[in-house]
């Protein structure tokens, strides 16, 4: 069966007695860019984790994402402190793809540097390069532009769009969402 949407039906997820998602339903298109919005603590990251299979819902069903590989930019960079920018970016792929992504994001001169030798914005770009180099079916972006200047935000957004796979992005910032051009929006209250 071919799905062109991810279908979430009556999803409830509780942490320590607190329902982060309560009977949440939505359909997320598996094409283009979808922006997930909601107040802090509304459950956006939890929704991502459920979609990526890192958490299981307490109740409800998720369909349309089975067997799909997720390329992720986590809320934190999650870089290996002992590995260079190139090694980090190549973690789920190969060095040529990783190098291409790093160069695209303006890190061609920093391939052999460790995370502690790079600025916060540069590390963020390495995390983005890792997701872009990975041969994923869906790109999950959780606050992907944290620490980036305007120019690098634009370069990164262009590179993400050019990956030509469905993009799900969490951002609070309208201007950051606009960097992707046209997008669908899903709100979690």
């Amino acid at each position: 069966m071919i799905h062109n949407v991810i279908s979430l039906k009556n999803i409830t997820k509780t942490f320590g007695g607190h329902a982060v998602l309560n009977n949440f339903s939505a359909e997320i298109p598996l094409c283009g860019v979808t922006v997930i919005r909601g107040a802090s603590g509304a459950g956006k990251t939890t929704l991502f984790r459920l979609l990526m299979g890192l958490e299981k819902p307490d109740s409800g069903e998720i369909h349309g994402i089975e067997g799909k590989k997720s390329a992720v930019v986590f809320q934190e960079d999650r870089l290996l402190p002992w590995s260079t920018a190139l090694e980090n970016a190549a973690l789920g792929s190969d060095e040529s793809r990783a190098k291409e992504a790093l160069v695209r994001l303006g890190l061609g001169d920093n391939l052999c540097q460790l995370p502690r030798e790079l600025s916060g914005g540069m590390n963020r770009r390495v995390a983005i390069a890792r997701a872009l180099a990975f041969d994923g079916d869906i790109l999950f972006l959780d606050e992907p532009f944290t620490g980036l200047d305007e120019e690098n935000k634009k370069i990164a957004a262009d590179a993400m769009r050019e990956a030509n796979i469905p993009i799900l992005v969490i951002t609070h910032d309208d201007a950051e969402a606009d960097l992707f051009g046209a997008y669908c929006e899903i709100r979690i209250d």
Partner: protein
Amino acid sequence: MPSKRKLFQTALIALIYLLVWEAVSLLVGKELLLPSPISTLSRLAVLLTKGETWLFSGLTLLRIMTGYAIGVVSGVLLAVLTARSQFAEALLSPLRAIVKTSPVTSFILLALLWLSSDMVPLVISILMVVPMVWTATAEAILQTDIRLIEMGKMFGLTKWQIVKKIFVPSVLPQFLAACTTSLGFAWKSGVAAEIIALPKQSIGYMLYQSKLRIETTDLFAWTLMIVALSMLLEWLLVRGMRRIRHDT
């Protein structure tokens, strides 16, 4: 390569210690109680010309380092087991606590009852090393950032790749530190075990003989030999570790 300044500083410190030793020795005035550095070093030079010194030192090294190697491997295996299984941790942690807290002489005397004198230093070295490597490695495994493991899984790393790329580099600093610390403990306890168990061809046996015949200069010369071997081992280990860290 150490700089000239560093070499000069090391030589100066050694000279200060030798001068203090010489001064105290002169003050005591009895070679039987405190031999001078000159007579100790002369005696060591004589000992070094004898084949049996090298043979006994080699055999002591072999016993203790075999125990050390077995201890490191066992410590790592136990760490992996107890970090993965709460039941294994609950089952085995009392044993670790007993080995950690009991006096080493109790184990030496027990080992002497159960084993040949040649085996006692080896077993004691194992007992000294296992809890140190086990504790440090298990803690490091448990402290490994779960978010990195999650990231590795998301990017399609296999279990083996997660071990190699995330667990090993994360655990390595604490593991290597435990290896260095436990080497000194294995060496000291191994020689102590030799002094009590008296395997015929060993540094411990020679130390005991020196004490028995009240040959204090010999006692000092053999002790210097032990210190020198210990420092050599530690130097080799640290060099090896630097290489491992560089390669990882």
